[in-house]
């Protein structure tokens, strides 16, 4: 019986090659999209789930109120880890993992900057990163031990044995390699290239017991069978115990299993996090697959007449309905299987691009039996979903009507098929509208005036001796003509590294608790980055030596101060008096989607600088400028590599996440449209074939080609119109909510919908018209004679 089914299925496939190709291709593309999304989801869900003790590992968080908002965050005092071990019997051990830092590695002549972090020596006892070399318990015992990842070791030592080798860090301290850890998997929050022992932090004098200094991350391994709620209750008052003034500052632990997907808080409660994206992507995957299945159903049922006779005969010779249902579902599983193989090929080809887009390293685990089982299950499910409707539809044919030829031909689109087409196009149109609006929002933010001039502007962190030699570097850069202006600042122009309230000024409302962005700069800030001055002048120490305690403010800050004449006003901050010399137009320091905040720029006396900003000479070629600059940097900071960044590139990163959203929704809409069009094309072909006699008669009676083309296309256009009517409000609602998340946002305009409508009509027209025209052009004599 099975053999017979397979035979029939394959012969049917081969007989109508066009339909088979459309069917399988549509299904394959749908499956491939779903597989890619599922890989992404699987990766997201598996973050840090590989730790053997994951059920017992937690991270310590704070919960406290600032600016009227209840905030939750995960930086903790350094002293917390040992306190947890001492005060809480529930805690087996606690590990500090500091934030990643760049360090300069010197091995022989090699100089490489690598990122890694200091950790407590019990790191490997808590987290399951596999040590290829070295002992879990002792690997970080000495303050000058270092653990490298496999690829870091290869970078530094090539094929030589790395264990026991000496590395010089930041030109000062020598470390011995005591462990090699397997490269980190693609699903962990950690991303170090090496680990240093915490004892080195102590050795450098950077450890402290200050409960007010929240500066590191603290993890804890709980003893088995600990009741988390009891522990949470005790943690609430921990901060207060050691810092009695913090009466409302609570601490809590957050389990490792929720880190990746849920750790987003609003007013002290979880408010979604990445799980929202995971769900959204899951829904999209289901929809794309569903659309591909709908195609399959549509094409299969449209071709039903060709199978009707077979159904009739099988029933006459004794087939039960069930056996026919089984046969047709079996057929669609076979098709799904072929499509699945093609889908796997597509996925393999698309993965590199998809990985770039999503910044991931996803791959298919071909050697994993679970993958194959899931894959087969997935194929079977797809086959059953796609085959169910056709199977029930086909198997319900009455043999009498089929075999006597009284079987009614599907002249028009039958209702369920209409609904399916509408469903497909509704989804496609929603995606088109969303894509356009996401792109519009990105453009809107990109076109927003940044407030400074990014042309020819580069920056470099003050590594090694750069801060010490800053003036020499600056002078050489200007003298060499590679730069027209140079200044140093506390942070890059694209990030806020410091903010605070409590400044004093004349006429200040005692209740004012405005949080100002704080930024430090040397002279020539306005000149270098091209700020627009509204009042006053740039910092200028040559002409005004007191400018080392000068301050410039932005217009938003001026609004807070309410000075009639800001210049010369005194702002007290951190025990120092700053006099305002200039007011500049707000520039975008943080998100281009957010309003700018009040900002204070402190002069040279602020004494904390991290970045040199260089305005390159536009008259020279950029490469030449950079080459000159590199030579100067090498001269004054020989041990460190020259690692400049373009400010405009840095600024562009602010749009990355939205751009990814835009690209993904763009790709999904193209795929959805592609699959839907395949289906539409198939249906149109079928309809044209079926109405060939009608067309012949109409032509004999005098209908023109245009008339017939219009007649055949009309049905489809009505369906698209209905889809559009359904899709518009849904996508409006969806995008309206999305945009509400951006204070600085574009409006949803009518033309977007009109464009989407036009686009879908155009696409549908292309899919349908070729078949309609072909049918309309055919010679009627031919079609009528065959009847």
């Amino acid at each position: 019986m099975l053999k017979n089914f397979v035979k029939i299925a394959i012969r049917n496939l081969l007989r109508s090659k066009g339909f088979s190709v459309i069917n399988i291709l549509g299904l394959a593309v749908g499956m491939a999209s779903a597989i890619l999304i599922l890989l992404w989801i699987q990766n997201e869900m598996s973050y840090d789930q590989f730790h053997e003790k994951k059920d017992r590992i937690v991270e310590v968080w704070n919960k406290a109120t600032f600016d009227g908002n209840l905030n939750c965050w995960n930086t903790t005092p350094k002293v917390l880890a040992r306190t947890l071990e001492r005060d809480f019997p529930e805690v087996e051990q606690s590990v500090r993992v500091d934030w990643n830092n760049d360090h300069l590695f010197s091995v022989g002549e090699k100089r490489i900057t690598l990122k890694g972090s200091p950790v407590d020596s019990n790191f490997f006892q808590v987290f399951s990163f596999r040590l290829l070399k070295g002992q879990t318990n002792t690997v970080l015992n000495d303050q000058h031990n270092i653990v490298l990842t496999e690829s870091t070791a290869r970078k530094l030592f090539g094929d030589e044995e790395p264990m026991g080798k000496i590395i010089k860090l930041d030109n000062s301290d020598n470390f011995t390699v005591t462990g090699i850890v397997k490269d980190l998997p693609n699903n962990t929050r950690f991303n170090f290239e090496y680990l240093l022992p915490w004892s080195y932090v102590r050795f450098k004098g950077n450890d402290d017991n200050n409960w007010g200094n929240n500066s590191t991350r603290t993890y804890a391994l709980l003893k088995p069978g600990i009741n988390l709620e009891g522990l949470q209750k005790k943690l609430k008052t921990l901060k207060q115990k050691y810092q009695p003034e913090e009466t409302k500052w609570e601490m809590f632990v957050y389990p490792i299993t929720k880190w990746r997907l849920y750790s987003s808080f609003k007013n002290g409660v979880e408010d979604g996090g990445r799980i929202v994206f995971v769900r959204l992507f899951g829904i999209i995957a289901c929809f794309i697959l569903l659309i591909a299945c709908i195609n399959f159903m549509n094409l299969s049922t449209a071709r039903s007449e060709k199978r009707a006779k077979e159904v009739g005969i099988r029933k006459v010779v004794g087939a039960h309905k069930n056996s026919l249902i089984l046969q047709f579902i079996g057929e669609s599983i076979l098709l799904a299987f072929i499509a699945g193989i093609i889908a796997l090929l597509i996925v393999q080809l698309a993965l590199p691009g998809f990985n770039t887009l999503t910044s991931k390293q996803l791959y298919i685990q071909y050697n994993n039996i679970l993958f194959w089982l899931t894959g087969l299950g997935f194929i079977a499910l797809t086959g059953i979903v796609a085959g169910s409707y056709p199977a029930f539809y086909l198997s319900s044919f009455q043999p009498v009507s089929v075999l006597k030829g009284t079987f009614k031909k599907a002249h028009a689109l039958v209702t369920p098929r209409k609904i399916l087409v509408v469903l497909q196009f509704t989804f496609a149109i929603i995606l088109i509208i969303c894509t356009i609006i996401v792109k519009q929002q990105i453009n809107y933010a990109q076109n927003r005036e940044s407030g400074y001039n990014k042309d020819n502007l580069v920056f470099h962190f003050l590594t090694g001796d750069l801060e010490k030699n800053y003036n020499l570097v600056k002078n050489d850069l200007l003298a060499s003509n590679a730069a027209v202006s140079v200044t140093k600042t506390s942070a890059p122009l694209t990030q806020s590294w410091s903010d605070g309230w409590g400044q004093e000024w004349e006429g200040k409302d005692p209740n004012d608790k405005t949080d100002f962005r704080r930024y430090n700069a040397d002279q020539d800030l306005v000149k270098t980055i091209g700020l627009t001055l509204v009042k006053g002048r740039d910092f200028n120490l040559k002409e005004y030596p007191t400018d080392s305690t000068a301050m410039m403010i932005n217009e938003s800050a001026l609004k807070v101060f309410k000075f009639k004449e800001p210049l010369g006003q005194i702002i007290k901050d951190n025990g120092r008096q700053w006099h305002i010399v200039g007011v500049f137009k707000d520039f975008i320091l943080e998100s281009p989607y957010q309003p700018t905040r009040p900002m204070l720029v402190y002069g040279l006396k602020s004494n904390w600088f991290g970045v040199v900003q260089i305005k390159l000479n536009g008259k020279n070629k950029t490469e030449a400028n950079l080459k000159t600059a590199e030579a100067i940097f090498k001269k004054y900071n020989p041990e460190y590599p020259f690692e400049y960044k373009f400010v405009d590139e840095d600024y562009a990163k602010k749009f990355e996440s939205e751009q990814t959203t835009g690209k993904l929704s763009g790709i999904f809409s193209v795929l959805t449209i592609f699959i839907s069009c395949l289906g539409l094309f198939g249906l149109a072909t079928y309809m044209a074939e079926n109405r060939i006699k009608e067309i012949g008669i109409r032509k004999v009676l005098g209908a023109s080609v245009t008339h017939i083309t219009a007649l055949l296309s009309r049905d489809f256009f009505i369906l698209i119109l209905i889809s559009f009517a359904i899709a518009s409000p849904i996508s409006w609602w969806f995008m309206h909510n999305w945009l509400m998340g951006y204070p600085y946002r574009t409006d949803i305009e009518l033309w977007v919908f009109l464009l989407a409508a036009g686009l879908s009509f155009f696409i549908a027209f292309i899919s349908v018209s070729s078949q309609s025209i072909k049918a309309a052009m055919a010679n009627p004599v031919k079609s009528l004679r065959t009847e």
Partner: protein
Amino acid sequence: MIKITALEKIYRTDEVETIALNKLSMDIKKGEFVAVMGPSGCGKSTLLNILGLLDDPDAGSFVFNDTEIAHFNERQRADLRKHNIGFVFQSFNLIDELTVFENVELPLIYTGVKPSERKKKVEEVLEKVQIMHRRNHYPQQLSGGQQQRVAVARAVVNNPKLILADEPTGNLDSSNGNEVMELLTNMNEQGTTIIMVTHSEHDARYSHRIIRMLDGQTVTENILV
């Protein structure tokens, strides 16, 4: 073998009500060869469909092999059909995607016959209808007569007790038609009951008895043998 009493079948569309069978009764004995004749629309095909368990009567009794089956459900009818009844259609109704051999094999598959035995039976019956040399051909590659011989082979491969033939020669020329009629006669001689609907007086003469119908009723019966 078959006894129908006061059988009724009415087709209704929105506006028109057509009485296809009007309190029809008849009796067919085992081993008989009966021809049913009558003008188009007299109810012959409806009768054949009901006899073949492809359709339900609206009223009346249908006893097949001493069992009342007028109210059997679809599954029961399918089971009864596949073991007892073979069909021959005017338009052959072979499955285009299957070869001659596979078409004939089909009923055996549904009755659960083992593959080795299937092969034997199919070859036997293909020999009988003299189409063995074409066993691996597809229906489109055969002439009409050959196709109908395959259809007959398919109808008898299960050794049915009853063959229902619906104008078996309607699409054939006379020599091919005669061949098929010989074949049916042959089957009948070997004990199979045959009921044949036909327009052809010539073909009807192969039968033992001609039942003439008009407006859903029998009008005359001619016993030929």
